[in-house]
């Protein structure tokens, strides 16, 4: 608003000569000029002030620098005195840093840890061994435990497969030594032992019953049962994901295990070492069920008053005894029983021997008791029987010729000719019909033995001779009258069988 009149005034002096406007301007601007002058003076004053301040600030800065320098010198000088004062604080600070920022500290310290351990081992080996021994020992123990468990499982499997005569004999001998078969198997396969048994109420973790092999009650059983319950609850709530059926059924610690079998209102926890035998869990289940049947309501209502529950220790002891170590419970057979068993075995052996003898005797005498019409059966029987039988044989026994030096078999009572193992050479005295049997009644086969044909006499039957010769169509055989055969070598009298059955 003020500018408008000013512009008007400024645009005004376009004319010349006496300008009344100048005087008006002088009058109007007098205040302004005066103001301007005052401002200029003020600015000058400020300028001077600033210069003064600047100098003073510079002075102050210099003073501070001097002081700093002095401090620096003082710190350097007092460094040795400061360190002991700062050291405890540093310890706390490092402790705090480790607590508050573990990850960063681990990151920072990690790279030097290996080197630090190496240096420490080099410098004080014994100390390091002592420090590490518990860890290494435990690790090795655990590894061996695992290995042993695996081995036992394998042995179990093998035992199941190798039930045979050998296994049976082993069991018999073990039984004679006083060890029942089932326990022998157990002892061989499993160093299994029950350490403790707990019966614990669900929820509260109150101990209902406890069994320990020693007579003295183990300490802290109530704490163990409470903590085990808390652990079970924790695992169930953390990993069960709402599935009511799933429960913690085993806890392993080193070579010990806690096997848990849950019932409706209480659960059974058995502390064992080794591998439990087959059927152990189902046995536990049976025990829990039995106890629930008889005491289920008592378990449920139990409020910590030990007078309200029966003594269940004997029931737990039964389970422990069933699976107790073989040496502890096996009752060796008494002296009397062993003697009786030995006498029994001896009598058995004698009886078997007598039975064998009787059987043999019966077989030997059978032919005499029931003589056969066909003597030909005899040689067969005699060949079976031994010479002892011959002694008792009656004189009618016709086996004797068989044992003649000539080895000539006795001709049978029938037509069966005797057989000469060593044929006698001969020649045909004339042309003669050859018959199939030493009999005129037999059919002629229209075979003719030519005169002077070389033949071999195979056997002789009365006036007949069995001969064999080489014909044009192969080897021929047949019977001819002895008179037509001229023997080339003599026949001994004993070579001719005298018997001829009409």
């Amino acid at each position, binding site marked *: 608003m003020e500018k408008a009149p000013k512009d008007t005034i400024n645009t005004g002096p376009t004319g010349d000569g006496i300008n009344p406007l100048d005087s008006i301007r002088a009058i109007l601007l007098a205040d302004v000029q005066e103001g301007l002058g005052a401002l200029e003076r003020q600015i000058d004053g400020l300028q001077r002030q600033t210069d003064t301040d600047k100098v003073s600030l510079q002075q102050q800065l210099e003073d501070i620098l001097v002081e700093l320098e002095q401090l620096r010198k003082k710190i350097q000088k007092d460094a040795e005195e400061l360190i002991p004062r700062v050291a405890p604080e540093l310890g706390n600070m490092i402790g705090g840093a480790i607590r508050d920022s573990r990850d960063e500290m681990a990151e920072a310290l990690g790279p030097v840890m290996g080197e630090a351990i190496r240096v420490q081992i080099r410098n004080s080996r014994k100390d390091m061994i002592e420090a590490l021994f518990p860890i290494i020992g435990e690790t090795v123990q655990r590894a061996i435990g695992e290995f042993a468990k695996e081995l036992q499982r394998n042995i179990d499997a093998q035992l199941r497969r190798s039930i045979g005569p050998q296994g049976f004999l082993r069991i018999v001998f073990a039984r004679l030594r006083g060890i029942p078969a089932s326990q022998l198997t157990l002892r061989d396969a499993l160093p299994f032992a029950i350490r403790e048994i707990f019966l614990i109420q669900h929820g509260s973790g109150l101990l209902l019953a406890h069994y320990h092999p020693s007579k003295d009650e183990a300490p802290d059983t109530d704490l163990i049962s409470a903590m085990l319950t808390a652990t079970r609850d924790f695992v169930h709530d953390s990993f069960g994901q709402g599935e009511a059926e799933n429960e913690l059924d085993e806890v392993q610690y080193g070579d010990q295990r806690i096997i848990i079998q849950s019932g409706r209102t209480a659960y059974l926890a058995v502390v064992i070492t080794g591998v439990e035998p087959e059927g152990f869990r189902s046995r536990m289940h049976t025990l829990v069920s039995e106890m629930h049947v008889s005491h289920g309501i008592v378990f449920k209502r139990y*409020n910590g008053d030990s007078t309200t529950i029966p003594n269940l220790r004997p029931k737990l002891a039964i389970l422990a005894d069933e699976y107790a170590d073989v040496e502890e419970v096996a009752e060796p057979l008494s002296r009397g029983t062993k003697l009786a068993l030995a006498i029994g075995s001896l009598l058995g052996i004698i009886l078997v021997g007598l039975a064998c003898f009787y059987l043999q005797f019966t077989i030997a005498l059978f032919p005499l008791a029931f003589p056969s019409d066909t003597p030909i059966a005899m040689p067969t029987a005699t060949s079976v029987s031994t010479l002892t039988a011959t002694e008792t044989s009656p004189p009618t026994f016709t086996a004797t010729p068989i044992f003649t030096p000539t080895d000539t078999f006795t001709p049978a009572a029938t037509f069966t000719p005797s057989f000469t193992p060593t044929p006698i050479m001969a020649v045909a005295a004339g042309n003669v019909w050859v018959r199939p049997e030493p009999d005129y009644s037999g059919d002629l086969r229209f075979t003719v033995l030519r005169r002077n044909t070389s033949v071999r006499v195979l056997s002789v039957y009365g006036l007949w001779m069995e001969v064999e010769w080489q014909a044009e169509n192969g080897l021929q055989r047949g019977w001819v009258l002895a008179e037509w055969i001229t023997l080339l070598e003599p026949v001994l009298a004993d070579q001719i069988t005298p018997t001829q059955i009409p």
Partner: protein
Amino acid sequence: MTTLIQKKICLLGDFAVGKTSLVRRFVEDRFDDKYLGTIGVKISRKVITRSYGQLNLLVWDMTGGEDLDTKVRMSYLHGAAGALMVCDLTRSYTLDVFEGYARQMRTLNPRVPLMFLANKVDLVNERVISDEQLWSISKALGGQSFYLTSAKSGESVETAFLHLADLIEEKA
């Protein structure tokens, strides 16, 4: 044979109110001012000789200030015969969790006796919770009394635990 009675009691309260220190004072009669938060639950036992025989108090010392709705908490409270609720006199908000804990305990057992403990009474100058506040909250939650305790000096600790044991025996 002397009568043996076992009772489970729970110790509930916000973080760092001194639950574990109270148990340590009660069971071992000692105090350690280092703070180590309890994870999950820590169980201790105190054997008290009574006229009828022996009372074993199994004290379940729980993690402080855990979310009340988690199932872990609920399962730890099962079968408890009584509970001690602890607040810190120097922090007024430690009273806030009492109602939730009391509700949980009553859900599981409506007749369960509850005992209220206001801990750290030795820190006189830092106290921010008045007796009137404690009275009103313990009445509202069905408690009969409260104790001003100090795990550090041992003041009223055993008295409070034994009073709870009496209440449990009365209910039983």
